[in-house]
């Protein structure tokens, strides 16, 4: 996804003079083509994320559209107060991009895991929280965020994620993309777990359970129009995210459920309330937290009594 980010930003910068990229001392080569468009609009702000976020807000308050890019914990939890005060309190149109989110950097240890970012950022007034499931969604998101002046947080993976959409999706922020229609259960995924979620749907189909699979690329604002009609069609909804089950996408859906008259059962898949102290690849970490197609499918079947 990060290559798609750099590529799409380069294309956008060629026609939009407001675009600026601020990097926290990563991805230097990644942005060579962007820098070729206009070297005055790329800044390596060093390993100083609090300042980088304030600089971005200052630029946004001066008419520019800065994108802040670094590894997710450092562009979210590290500088949360700058996001809260400089970006959100001022409603400055800064786009914060967290790369390697979730367990993408699993083998780098918990300092580089980001399993709390959506939880804390969606508490901020005016902040939009976006988790595209593949490169094509990300490219569309980059176009869409420039259409208004809302601060936005985009969490992306690193590289090599599977392409989900065969064609460029007609993505609108705050409106879900239904990947597959179904009748028995709805699987809602935010972000890079979509390939695993689709595999889970395939396994369910083998047991005669036909799942709707939906990309909730926008976690805030939630697509409550879709949820309202889905609530009429499904008794069981399932949320899947590479994020803590506390406060993230699943919690957002649970908050919405509280306002509903109809009883809807929800099962949430995400990471446990622990730091991972053992070494492991992303696949190992996902397996540890039950974020696999097998576990998702078997848990759903158990919930359905099948």
């Amino acid at each position, binding site marked *: 996804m990060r290559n798609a980010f750099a590529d799409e930003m380069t294309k956008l910068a060629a026609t939009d003079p407001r675009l*600026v990229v601020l990097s926290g001392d990563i991805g230097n080569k990644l942005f060579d083509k962007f820098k070729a468009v206009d070297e*005055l*609009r790329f*800044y390596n*702000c*060093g390993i*100083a994320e*609090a*300042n*980088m*976020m*304030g*600089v*971005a*807000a*200052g*630029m*946004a*308050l*001066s*008419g*520019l559209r*800065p994108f802040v890019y670094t590894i997710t914990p450092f562009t979210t939890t590290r500088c949360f*107060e*700058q996001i809260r*005060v*400089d970006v959100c*309190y*001022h*409603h400055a149109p800064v786009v914060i991009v967290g790369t390697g989110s979730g367990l993408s950097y699993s083998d780098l240890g918990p300092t580089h895991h980001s399993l709390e970012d959506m939880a804390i950022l969606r508490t901020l007034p005016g902040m939009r929280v976006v988790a595209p499931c593949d490169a094509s969604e990300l490219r569309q998101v980059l176009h869409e965020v420039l259409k208004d002046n809302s601060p936005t947080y985009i969490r992306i993976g690193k590289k090599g994620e599977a392409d989900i959409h065969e064609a460029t999706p007609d993505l609108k922020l705050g409106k879900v993309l239904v990947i597959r229609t179904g009748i028995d259960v709805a699987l809602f995924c935010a972000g890079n777990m979509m390939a695993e979620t689709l595999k889970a749907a395939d396994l369910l189909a083998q047991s005669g359970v036909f799942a709707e699979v939906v990309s909730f690329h926008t976690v805030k604002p939630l697509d409550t129009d879709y949820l309202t009609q889905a609530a009429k069609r499904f008794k069981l909804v399932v949320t899947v995210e590479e994020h803590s089950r506390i406060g993230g996408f699943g919690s957002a859906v649970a908050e919405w459920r509280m306002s509903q008259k109809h009883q809807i059962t929800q099962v949430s898949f995400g990471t446990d309330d622990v730091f991972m102290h053992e070494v492991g690849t992303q696949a190992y970490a996902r397996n540890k937290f039950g974020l696999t197609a097998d576990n998702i499918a078997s848990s759903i079947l158990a919930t359905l009594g099948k």
Partner: protein
Amino acid sequence: MMRTHDLAGLAKTASILRSRIIETSSKTGTPHLGSCLSCVDILTALYFDVLNIDPVNPKAPDRDRCILSKGHGAMGLFHVLAERGFYPLSDLDSYGQDGGVFAEHPPTPEHLAGIEAATGSLGHGLPLGLGMAMAGRIQGRRYKVYVVLGDGECNEGSVWEAAMLASAQHVSNLCVIVDFNKWQATGRSQEVMALDPLADKWKAFGWNAVEVDGHDFEELLGALDHFPGTNGRPTAIIAHTVKGKGVSFMEDDNNWHYRIPTADEVIQAKKDLGVLQ
């Protein structure tokens, strides 16, 4: 050629502003009086002599930007902006009242004309100002950005993160003025975080740094006249100030970080300031 300055007029304006600030503190129970009085002369020099701003067109793209990063000095800034014509002085009658915008810290620019950034949490103003200064360069605008910091505020790491980036990027249209009153909330700034030698710190970070008497308009404006420097560096003016400046019983007494003056103390303060016979 150096510009000429109305030094006597600025001094008179500053005394009137101090008097109004003290009245507001007493009337509304707003603290941080000592901190407001130490930076009044700095703000007066900026807003009544230096800044290229127009109260009728407060969002003009080419205007100079000034951020009071030590947001607890807001009471001073509010009076400065009223006197400068951004809104009527009578608007400050709503100070501290429910539903108003005048409180202990500056609101956002969308909520009060003349404000460039909402501050209050320390260490935010310089990164914001740096971003504005860099934006000016990107957009080919010639405006300047001024950021007023407290000395206690220089405890914050984000100040020094910004100082390094400004230096690395040669952001010469950025000027910091440190209101160096030697106090922070609970003690001497030197004792709490070993701030000295402050000018040398800014120089070591690649800035032009000069020390002035922050209550002497000739010295303050002399330093501001030399900004931007010709060597491509950002500028730091270390303004030595006195907390509670202008009122005999408040000067260098850190109790006035939080104390509220009584009606009798307001009268005495006005006598000290020469605005009450």
